[in-house]
């Protein structure tokens, strides 16, 4: 069984919602669309207060090349263009839409019929990328990197294969798992579209073997698609990291930044992104909804919901049995890399792969003890770094040393802190160091 070569941990999987089929969430009363649903420049609003919008109406256009437009996921009236609390924990520009009815733009094909690549011989690489760009598709695994950027290799680089990330290494989350079980055909067409967009003949779908049903189904269906191969992977976190996945699937390691996956010939896309690409290209449907796992040990009905973007998290929880009394922490995303939210009024965004509730007891961290230099963090680090050292030099503000020790290579996966017997807040301090060092490097480059 393949896996990545350096480090890694195995957190308790807790895939509570794996057996619950995807269900459609109700429409919210008011939807809030953040202008920061992706990495890069914020989107620029093109609507104003009082405008009537339909499902699929453009609300904001991309603010640059590394950016993505935002479409309305509901029909109704724009009530204000203001700021809203989002998953980052700060207030940032957002568009509020009061929902009335559910009217869709006519251009969107809402039928369920599968459109194969062979049905659309007119599509060429340029059209596909253009459609993806216009549909506002970003990496749906959580990183929210605008999709079209990755499909436009920089000059001098040539993609050799497409790797689809269906690993879902985060504990609890099952959105991608359910998507594969219920929309395997669409995903495979999506993969073909990506392969065509970057002009490669090989596509790999990496799935961890804690999802044997998905591996079986996808392998079966992939037989009908030339060049696509399903690669079962050993369960190990953080296999869903782009660099780790490439190492696991094709055995190549992306060098330290500024190198990017395309330098080793790989284009990595999430399985949810592949599905969204299918919908955007074949059905003309911009990115207006996604599957989100609402889960937690105290949640009555852990579910996978197909919810419209902009729906407040409060409503999603209500649909899964309400907020439990003893909730101590609400996490947007998975437990290893998700962000703790300060309120449930935060709306769902393109990057919301999960909503995890933790009880007060689970939420509490244990008090840190002195580092005993056990080197478990060094063994666990998937990037071959020394977390104990990086954390220490960040604490002592030795930025030169931190840079020399490759702090910028850290992918913030949290394996070090997860494994630390002394419960030290290793990643907390490393993040401080990393962001400071990045700032120093940037200002040096500006000179």
């Amino acid at each position, binding site marked *: 069984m393949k896996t990545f070569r*350096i480090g890694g*941990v195995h*957190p*308790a999987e807790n895939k509570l919602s794996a057996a619950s089929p995807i269900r459609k969430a109700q429409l919210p009363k008011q939807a809030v669309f953040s202008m920061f649903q992706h990495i890069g420049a914020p989107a620029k609003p093109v609507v104003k207060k009082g405008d009537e919008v339909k499902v699929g109406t453009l609300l904001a256009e991309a603010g640059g090349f590394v950016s993505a437009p935002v479409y309305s996921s509901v029909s109704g009236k724009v009530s204000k263009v203001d700021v809203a609390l989002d998953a980052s924990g700060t207030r940032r520009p957002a568009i509020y839409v009061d929902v009335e009815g559910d009217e869709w733009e006519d251009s969107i094909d809402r039928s369920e019929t599968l459109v194969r690549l062979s049905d659309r011989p007119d599509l060429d690489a340029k059209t596909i990328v253009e459609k993806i760009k216009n549909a506002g598709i970003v990496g749906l695994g959580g990183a929210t990197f605008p999709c079209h950027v990755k499909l436009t290799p920089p000059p001098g680089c040539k993609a050799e294969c497409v790797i689809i990330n269906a690993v879902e290494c985060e*504990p609890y989350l099952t959105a991608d798992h359910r998507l594969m079980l219920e929309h395997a055909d669409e995903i495979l067409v999506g993969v073909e579209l990506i392969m065509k967009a970057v002009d490669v003949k090989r596509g790999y779908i990496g799935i961890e073997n804690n999802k044997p049903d998905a591996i079986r189904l996808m392998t079966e269906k992939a037989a009908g698609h030339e060049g696509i191969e399903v690669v079962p992977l050993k369960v190990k976190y953080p296999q869903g990291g782009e*660099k780790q996945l490439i190492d696991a699937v094709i055995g190549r*390691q*992306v*060098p*330290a930044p500024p*190198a990017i996956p395309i330098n080793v010939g790989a284009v990595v896309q999430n399985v949810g992104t592949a599905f969204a690409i299918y919908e955007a290209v074949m059905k003309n449907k911009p990115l207006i909804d996604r599957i989100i796992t609402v889960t937690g040990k105290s949640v009555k009905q852990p579910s996978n919901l197909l919810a419209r973007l902009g729906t407040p998290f409060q409503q999603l929880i209500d649909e899964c049995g309400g*907020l439990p*009394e003893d909730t*101590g*922490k*609400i*996490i947007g*995303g998975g*437990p*290893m*890399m*998700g962000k*703790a939210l*300060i*309120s449930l009024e935060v709306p769902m965004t393109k990057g919301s792969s999960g909503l*995890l509730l933790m009880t*007060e007891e689970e*939420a*509490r*961290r*244990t008090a840190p*003890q*002195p580092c*005993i*230099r*056990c*080197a*478990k963090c*060094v*063994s666990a*680090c*998937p*990037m*071959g*770094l*020394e977390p104990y*050292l990086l954390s220490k030099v960040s604490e002592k503000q030795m930025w030169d040393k931190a840079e020399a020790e*490759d702090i910028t*290579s850290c992918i*913030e996966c*949290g394996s070090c*802190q*997860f*494994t*630390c*017997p*002394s*419960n030290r807040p290793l*990643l*907390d301090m490393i993040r401080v160091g990393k962001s400071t060092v990045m700032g120093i490097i940037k200002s040096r480059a500006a000179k």
Partner: protein
Amino acid sequence: MSKLTISLSPHVHGGDSVQKNMYGVCLALMPALIVSLCFFGLGAAIVTAASVISCIFFEWAITKFILKRDELTITDGSAILTGLLLAFNVPSNLPIWIIVIGALFAIGVGKMTYGGLGQNPFNPALLGRVFLLISFPVQMTTWPVSGQLGSYVDVQTAATPLSIMQNAISTGDASLLNELPDSFHMLIGQTGGSMGEASAICLLLGCLYMLYKKIITWHIPVSIILTVFVFAGVLHLTNPVYANPVQVILSGGLMLGACFMATDYVTSPMSHKGQLIYGVSIGLLTVIIRNWGAYPEGMSFAILIMNVFTPLINTYCKPKRFGEVKK
């Protein structure tokens, strides 16, 4: 509902703790302790109890009265472990007062002066042992013969396999080696020596347990034992006054040192590459000190010497970075 908590990711923890690791090592030492009790009887029990109790006491007293810290550190298991390891490194007929001095040195000087758990550059138990060895050479090098269960300081003593080996080298008379017990007895541990030196097989069992529980990695014990085996083997082949390598690795504190002392978290290198360098160096130093040094046992000195080099090894032996290209 009370206030929500916010923190940066990760939001889950693997559940490992300092206590689990420390008590895990203590548990791994139990088979060897039981065998020691069977071979050395009362003396072993008294020495072990005195050592553990005094280590805990000194840590508590120093934390409370000298460092004036509020948090209680004696429950983390490290003091118990130091006490056990110290007891394993001394003869079972050692008077209690010497043990107490050893414990005071191990905890007071070896650990707490540097700031307590995680800060010490040397293995505290070994520091205590070496201090005793230099201060009380007579008491520390008379080894009781096993099987005298009811007696303590008044036991019969005899030469250990190690002193026989060194004697053979210094006199150049290979026939002296015939006095060595056979390998099987050395494996089981029915030979004279300090408590922890007794049963190689029980120590190996403990080591396997620690490997299984992922308390330690294989790098240090394997590299030490392999190095000693190869080096001693080469010597044995060139000149038969050097004992055969199987007996070398089964004698003395080698197993204890390789599995429990050298693998001490705080004083061993962090990267696997560094751990291998550390292990090989300890193995080489051990054989050199045993064969040509003044003391019959070189393990503790070898480990302490390499403890000094640990920061240097950490500075120059980095784990292989992801995607690193060989220059």
